[in-house]
């Protein structure tokens, strides 16, 4: 009899332990990012940003150990969709996160809806993304959101005639449209526009045309990286700055990751964006320190790493508020209206659109004491929303 009881007790204890263990199952975050191909940098920045957050804030939240499962999309949306499917059905992740490129995010959106998985967009910037699934929240920015303030700032500072130059693809056209809209609505005049090809663009003829048109400024949107470097070199060689033409752009052109490769050409360029490594705050210092511990100091962090850091912050907060039991619908309720003390400054997830509301800074490229170039913030627009929604 006694033996029987003992057995019962033992098995109950075992059951309890098992139940407890399952409550302690790891919190799985499936990261769908580009880690190879032309956009490998995007994935590296995001991966390192996420790991930096785990390094700084511990890898356990609400009693669950955080497990990051990274999958490479190679920049192709059908691969993104497939790896996301595997993350949901095989790995049983609690969150989908990452997404450097818009097509990848759009391809996965219907899956987030079907699986009721919260999907945290850490970078992709096309305005439309959050409308494609109620389970998407974005912690990065939208392109119109950083473009409109540039137009407003230009108008306020006596610039009335602008020539626009954008890369000829979706985001470039979005930037051009938004800039023209805000600028002409405020009484400015667009004296010319040009769209440059995505493959091996040669900027010299375009720059000459711009120089001949004699605008007060040229507004530029180009994808971060090589194109921006090529453009800056051409801009300096053709001496547009000496002809009195100002260069205004979105932050992509003087992005922190590539600015060092541009020589002194970008000095004085004015851009608008939501993040600069030169941002002066305790949160940013903590971020940069953790980032350097994870990724070394060779490569500078950029806004994508910040997006990943904030995405992790959002997911940690959801886990805490739900005591570690992640339910898609409840998670979205927590995410709507969430406030995050981001390295970029205050960030709120708009409860209506699930897009970020944040400060957009006006920055000027300056050389710091260490001899390196930085985007130094000197003006700001607070609580900027995506103007297209």
């Amino acid at each position: 009899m006694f033996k029987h009881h003992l057995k019962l007790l033992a098995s109950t204890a075992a059951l309890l332990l098992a139940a407890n263990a399952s409550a302690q199952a790891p919190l799985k975050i499936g990261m769908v990012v580009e880690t190879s191909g032309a956009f490998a940098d995007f994935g590296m920045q995001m991966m390192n940003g996420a790991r930096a957050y785990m390094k700084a804030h511990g890898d356990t939240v609400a009693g669950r150990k955080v497990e990051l499962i990274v999958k490479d999309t190679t920049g192709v949306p059908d691969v993104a969709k497939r790896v996301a499917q595997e993350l949901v059905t095989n790995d049983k992740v609690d969150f989908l996160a990452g997404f450097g490129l818009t097509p990848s995010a759009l391809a996965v959106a219907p899956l987030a809806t079907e699986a009721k998985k919260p999907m945290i967009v850490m970078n992709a910037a096309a305005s439309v993304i959050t409308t494609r699934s109620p389970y998407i929240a974005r912690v990065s920015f939208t392109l119109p959101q950083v473009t409109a303030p540039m137009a407003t700032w230009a108008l306020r500072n006596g610039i009335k005639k602008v020539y626009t130059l954008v890369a000829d693809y979706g985001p470039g056209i979005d930037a051009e449209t938004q800039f023209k809209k805000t600028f002409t609505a405020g009484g400015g005049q667009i004296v010319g526009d040009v769209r440059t090809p995505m493959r091996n663009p040669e900027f010299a003829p375009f720059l000459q045309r711009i120089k001949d048109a004699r605008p007060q400024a040229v507004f530029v949107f180009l994808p971060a990286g090589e194109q921006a470097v090529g453009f800056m070199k051409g801009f300096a060689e053709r001496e547009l700055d000496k002809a009195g033409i100002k260069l205004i752009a979105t932050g992509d052109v003087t992005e922190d990751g590539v600015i060092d490769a541009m020589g002194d050409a970008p000095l004085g360029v004015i851009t608008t964006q939501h993040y600069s490594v030169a941002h002066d705050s305790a949160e940013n210092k903590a971020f940069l320190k953790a980032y350097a511990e994870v990724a070394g100091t060779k490569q500078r962090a950029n806004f994508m790493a910040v997006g990943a850091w904030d995405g992790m912050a959002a997911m940690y907060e959801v886990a805490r508020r739900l005591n570690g039991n992640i339910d898609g619908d409840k998670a979205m309720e927590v995410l709507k209206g969430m406030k995050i003390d981001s390295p970029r400054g205050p960030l709120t997830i708009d409860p209506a659109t699930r897009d970020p509301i944040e400060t957009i800074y006006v920055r000027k490229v300056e050389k710091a004491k260490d001899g390196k170039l930085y985007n130094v913030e000197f003006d700001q627009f607070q609580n900027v929303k995506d103007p297209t929604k």
Partner: protein
Amino acid sequence: MSIPTQAARQIPVAEIVFWLVLAAGFWLWPSYLPLASQVLIAGLFALSLDLVLGYAGIVSLGHAAYFGVGAYAAGVLASHGWGEPFSGLLLAAVCAGATGFITSFLVVRGKDLTRLMVTTGIGLLLFELANRLTDVTGGNDGLLGMEMRPLLGTFRFDMYGKVAYGYSLAVTFVLFLLMRRVVNSPFGLSLRGIRDNPGRMLALGYPVHRRLIAMYTLASVYAGIAGALLAQTTQFVGTDVLSFNRSAELMVMLIVGGTGMLYGGLVGAAVFMVAHHYLSDLNPSYWQFWLGAFLIAIVMFGRDGVLGACLRLMRAWRVRAQKAALES
């Protein structure tokens, strides 16, 4: 030597087993069905390239053009409210076939190097067109709002990829049977003749150009259907369906598998994509190095691809077994 047409009539056991294993995929690899259906689609696409490269001797680095046209045809149809899968396939076949027919005149004219350039050019042109025509294709952001209706009115495309797998397998199987018939028909044999010696075939009175155009058009139809399958099972189309990278990877898959051997495309797609998947899971950053090494190793050990190497090994083993039997 046996005449190929006779060989085609008796279907070897190995082939039956091959398709049975694929059909058993629902139970053999239930958690990898999304990957498996993309392997089948890539395999079907590789069959299409095999038709032109392996059987007609036309080198192409722009085959994604027809794949992309098919994908967009099916995608645009579905995003305009007609999400019935088979009609999407049909439209894709027609559009890709028409594109293939028109462009074939440019391709067939030249020799290997010019063909390489012309096909690459066609691919790049269509890519740029898709990028520009944002009203139709969604441009760089991709085509939005594809809503697929359930297959045959009952099977909804699920996130585990069961329906997608069954659908891709059925379509690939039917098209494979058709291809088998075509390449072993007198038409197919004449193309092999053209591949090996076009001057001789011309002298024998074969309409070389017309045959090549017919084969190229047929291959475009195959590529278009593969593209449509990918669009429908992913429920998204981006400009990358037309990318040069897709054409180049396709060529690699086919060569890894083996050209002109019917199964080369399917085997190559499976080897390439499974290796890709496995390696990129091991290390998401540096897997391309290992994939490269792996591909080089394959080509070093088997000049005629994985399938060719396997067949040679089997033949050698059989010869040795026969010898042993004789000696004893």
